């Protein structure tokens, strides 16, 4: 009985995880289009209906990202075998005995883990830069700095998300 409940619970989390991931992907796509289209294609600042859509999807994306971070973080911990070269350096420095070397299966998630943590890391300046600008704390010069921070962090963030998604897809395909 306990086993049945446990299985059902896990599947609910899985469903939520999948749902959050899909909503996050959709939100990301909307945010990227509404954010980059006026700036990169039209050469203008984001404004009009685009800014409204952008601001509507931003909190949705933030919530999904926070949820996914919580549920994925444990799986994306770096393990000893993720970087054998580092392990070897440490062994030489400390003269400690290392493990038996990692199998290729375990090393395959490294890129995914790095991009995951990069996403989490970049999400902070991305969200906080625009959030800070909404409070009467900083003057025009800093407002412009915050907008630039938001913009350039967004470029890197988008690239990392795309790489992460591709790696995830490749891994799924391999499985």
């Amino acid at each position, binding site marked *: 009985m306990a086993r049945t409940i446990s299985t059902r619970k896990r599947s609910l989390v899985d469903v939520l995880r999948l749902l959050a991931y899909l909503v996050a992907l959709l939100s990301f796509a909307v945010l990227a289009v509404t954010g980059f289209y006026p700036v990169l294609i039209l050469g203008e600042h984001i404004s009009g209906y685009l800014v409204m859509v952008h601001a509507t999807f931003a*909190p949705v994306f933030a919530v999904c990202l*926070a949820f996914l*971070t919580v549920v994925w973080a444990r799986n994306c911990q770096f393990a000893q075998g993720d970087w054998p070269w580092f392990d070897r350096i440490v062994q030489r420095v400390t003269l400690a*005995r290392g493990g038996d070397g990692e199998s290729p299966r375990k090393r395959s998630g490294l890129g995914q883990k790095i991009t995951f943590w990069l996403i*989490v890391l970049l999400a902070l300046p991305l969200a906080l830069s625009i*959030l800070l600008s909404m409070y009467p704390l900083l003057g025009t010069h800093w407002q412009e700095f915050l907008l630039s921070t938001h913009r350039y962090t967004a470029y890197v963030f988008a690239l990392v998300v795309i790489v992460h998604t591709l790696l995830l897809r490749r891994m799924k395909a391999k499985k």
Partner: protein
Amino acid sequence: MYSGERTERTLTKGRVSAGFLCVLALCLAAGAARTERKLLGDESDGSRAQPLHRIELLAAPGDESKGPLTVDPNIDPKAEVLQPFSTRYTCGMCHSYAIIKRGWHFNYVDPNVDPGRPGQPWIYVDARTGTQVPLSYRAWPGTFKPKQFGLTDRVFTKIFGRQTPGGGAGEQTTDNPDEIMRQYISGKLDINCLSCHNGDPRQDQGGPAGYAVQISRGNFRWAAAASSGLALVKGSAEDMDDAYDPFDPFAIETAGTGKKPPPTITYHKNVFDRENFVFFDIVREVPSNRCYFCHSNLYVGSDGAEKWACDEDVHLKAGLTCVDCHREGIAHNTIRGYIGEQETSTNEPTAASSCEGCHLGESSSSDPVAGRLGAPVPEHRGLPPVHFERLTCTACHSGPWPAAQPYVTKTSMAHRLGTPNVNKASQMLPHIASPVFARQADGKIAPHKLIWPSFWGVLRDGKVEPTALGAVTKVITDVLAKEKFPSSGDWPDLTADHITKALTALAAGGSLEGKAVYVTGGRLYSLDDSGQLRGEKDHPAAKPYLWPLAHEVRPAPQALGIRYCTDCHGTDAPFFFGNVTVDTPVVADRQAQKMVQFEDINSFYAWAFAFSFVFRPWMKIVVLGSSAVLALVLLFYVLKALGCVVKVLAGENS
């Protein structure tokens, strides 16, 4: 080949001729420049002290080809006529009048002068004919030339000269046979230097015998002297018949025996010293009080409609005067102070004299120029920079705090404030509304004053030509003879029936080439073939005229947006959703338009954007909460990783 040679020869000949013409033009220009010799007061020697003005008074001669007359108070009045001094000749002894008359306040009659940003028009009003039109000699889109309404320079000066410093239309030589003698009797309205530069508190612009009254009496020649505080002028040139000669003592004596006295001047005692010189208290920097005579605003219905309850512009209270920003040299090329003016102005500090010029510093300057005159450099904390691209500084800082409906606004020039017998009723025409937030030619939104034109005209080839006021008055006054006109000076209540009758009467006159129309409240009324009245909305001729307002600057803690974004981005914020009443004598058309219509912004978009601010605090909480979770997770695993590193470095096998 032959043809080519001929063409080449022709071109060479052309080049030689063009070169010769250029050299000739340069020589002529150099010669002209040499003839514009500088007078004593044209160029400063660098002293900031005020020069003493103890000078001889000179009067204009009857015959302009002759030299000026020296004013001698001891003449025999039976042999000579005591003349009013002329600023043109008296001040012109040391200051080049020809240069000064090219200045902004006087050059409006010159069609070659760049009109610049639309400014305040003169507004002709006649409630009895349902007329309210913005007039200007300058080519400001939406205004009409006085000539279009049959107003000659002389008539224009008589109506509006009261709040000008003279010159301009007032000193144009008339070629109208009906007005040649009138101009000889009245004289020309010279530039009245004293209107601005007289530091004497007796300078009388709006008193019962002051400048404005003298102009309404047609005493153009006497106006400057009468207002100077040095003399008293009685009588009216307007009352004199065409045969009257103001330089003939006998004519004056004869006219003086009649009921309507001729214009005469009496200089006050002790004005002249022993050498018949007169002291003028001339100030180089014009006091703001002098500017106020023509440039006062009254916002009826605002909390501070009364002067004592109303704060002045924050710059004046900080100790600046009007001329600290609106600077000019001997050329009197006044800085108007708007962004972009430097592109057409030859006045050097123009770029540095706008809001940005003082507060932010001129971007093109190599030296630091921000904070001129002690101007604080604004921080604009929390204000997204996009606002600087979309709005002028004045949008948030100038005029009264916007209300649900723009204020009925009175101005000196439109309502002759400060002159005798002003109708103080709030509904006195013309009806100016402000602040109306509208998009300017440069694409930015700025607060404006607004007036809806109302006039009778003729529709020809889709264009409306105004009908001369004289012709309109005759016809329309008869049609509206039985109507009651409010003593407040407000519109009479017109109906479709009135307009139908009036248009029929105008058409019946037979002198109109085209269809008689009435433009009012944004509509163009005309009669169709069956004689039925039809009103066409949004006709270009019926568009309101708007001009930017920039003064009554509020301090930063009273700027729009100081409380929250919803000062403007609220679903009922006046900035977007204020109701601008359509002003017209036609009762049925007195509706309102939303402010967004003047801003060229989609009404739904403005509302939706404003509505999104309802959720803005929630969005902030959600994003902040999510960021906190991300930060905590990150921190947790960073610490965990650090623990691993510490263990490894400590030699523990994890």
